């Protein structure tokens, strides 16, 4: 089962003209535009994920190990520390979700458009043999493949996500 390079057995062929060969996927992945997209996303998502998991696990741990503290009164009769902590989880979830949407709109989406534009350029430019592969692509269908065939339309040059949607408020 570990034979390398098994041809994909997907049910349907990928959409016409939108799938570069292996070498091209790697080239796209190595463009500075794509690298910047991935790094910027990682730089936001990793700390945000660490934060929400920390805040949530702290809540759960305190619910498990600090029952008395969690049950103590918070400012007014009826409210406990535990409930305020629980409600803060709701606030955190709403807040982080909105922050992510805003960050995506302002930073990630424009970067993605640029990465896609760069991918379209790569798909359309002739590729000299030997320059395609990074080390470690022996046997990849890439070396001569590239996308030199002018009959093959390149990847979508525009952000496919910019259509259809008007409801992201």
């Amino acid at each position, binding site marked *: 089962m570990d*034979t390398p390079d098994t041809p*994909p057995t997907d049910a*349907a062929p990928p959409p016409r003209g939108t799938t570069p060969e292996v070498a091209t996927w790697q080239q*796209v992945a190595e463009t500075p535009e794509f690298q910047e997209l991935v790094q910027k996303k990682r730089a936001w998502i990793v700390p945000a*994920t660490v934060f929400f998991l920390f805040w949530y696990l702290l809540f759960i741990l305190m619910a498990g190990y600090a029952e008395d503290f969690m049950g103590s009164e918070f400012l007014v009769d009826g409210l406990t520390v535990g*409930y305020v902590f629980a409600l803060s989880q709701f606030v955190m979830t709403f807040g982080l979700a909105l922050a992510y949407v805003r960050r995506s709109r302002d930073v990630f989406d424009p970067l993605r458009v640029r990465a896609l534009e760069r991918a379209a350029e790569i798909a359309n430019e002739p590729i000299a043999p030997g320059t395609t592969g990074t080390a470690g692509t022996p046997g990849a269908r890439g070396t001569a493949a590239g996308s030199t065939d002018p009959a093959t339309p390149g990847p979508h040059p525009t*952000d496919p996500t910019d259509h259809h949607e008007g409801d992201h408020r």
Partner: protein
Amino acid sequence: MSPFLAQASDGVNGLAVGIFALVVGITLAITFWASKKTTSSTDFFTAGRGITGRQNGFAIAGDYMSAASFLGIAGLIYYFGFDGFLYSVGFLVAFLTVLFLLAERMRNAGKFTIADVLSHRLNARPARAAAAVGTLTVAAFYLIAQMVGAGVLIQALMGISFQLSVVLTGIFMLSYVIFGGMLATTWVQIVKAVMLMTATTILTILVLIKVGGNPLNLFTQARDASPEGARYLAPGLNYTNPIDTVSLGLGLVLGTAGLPHILMRFFTVPTAKAARTSVVWAIGLIGAFYLMTTALGFGARALIGGTELASGIDKAGNLAAPRLAEFIGGGAGTFGGDLFLAIIAAVAFATILAVVAGLVISASGAMAHDVWNGIVKRGTATDKEEMWAGRVAALIVGVIAIVVAVIGGEGLNVSFMVGLAFAVAASANFPALLLALTWRRFNTTGALTGVAFGVISAILLIVISPGVWPGSGGSPLGWDLKNPGIVSIPLGFFGCWLGTVLSSDSSTQDKFDELRVRAETGLGAEEAVSH
């Protein structure tokens, strides 16, 4: 025996039946409309990818908020106060995992199933087998749990027998999926989400009015009405073992991101941006809903008190919300009380239908698209064949679920099966999916061992857990964790790592770039079909 249960056992509740019929009529009309638009496998499994972000947000909420959430959590809060609310918090925070790590990537790299995402970089047939095992395990246990829950609830609320309730639920569920595919399923879920949110909001407002308008009164009155007193607002009434609490929390927050029927919803929108939008809508709806479950549970405690509900028949407190509705409407025997009770019963019924339909279509995708077409036919099936395979698969899954629920009967342990579904989702599906998307070294062997470790450890730990062995002095092996997550989730990740490093297969590292470019940019993503 309470007046409510006496009424239920007296016979069929006519008002409830009438409102049920209305709900069923609306959903069947939706199905008829959807059936004419379902002409390809993309229509059948993904509604032609033509659902908008906002619609999908409502549908996710409708897919996710099961009767266990609506009635179960209200009941848990009624009984255990703070410890019941722990579930609400976990169920909501879980969507940050979905939003940050999976939603857009699923849309960009997937077609019909979780396996589509994995097979971009892993060897397709074993990857599909692994993903199908995870998907079918989760869907089967969750589905049977929901069917049994449906039977018990409809029996109590409408006065028809358990068996008939299960069969009726199953027939409607199969009608939506087989004839109307994902389009009908989606709109049933949207209708349900609107009904559930409306009913819950009205009940919450009426409860708040009853307690004097100040939400704090709800807290103090519920506390004062509880035999536990101040401990009602503190942790520890349900979970006495802190490790169990942590284990539950982990299972909830990571399990959601491995639920196939939730992940499948991201294939129904045209773009990754719409997938993102839909999670934000879902978070808003689900968050508002779970905040209101507090009002339902505390409201039942403060207004009805402890005596009527504490009958042996309703240990789980599932009837706290319906009883509260009856009380708010004017009490048992009054027209208002009956009407409110009937409406809540209808909402619960719609809730069950929407969830089971979503589960059936996700199981159908795994069977038809992954097992039949991907593994048996090696991807050679035509589009029409795949659509019909989906319908046949839905029928098979649905009939099995109905038969198991009827044979297993009311005695089947629902919480065991729901716990198992979340545990497998968190321990098998989530690690494999996350590592495929983020770890360059990950390979096919890793996915197989990871899923095997996750599924087996979750099932074993639940089988030996004390909840499965009631009354016999606890687990035979002395294992006293009710929730396996704290052990099985790390084991799932460990299995992924172990299989990867033991295998010499490095071919999938090259294809990691492909999956990453696809997932992050949407290059080569499946496009929406236009009708």
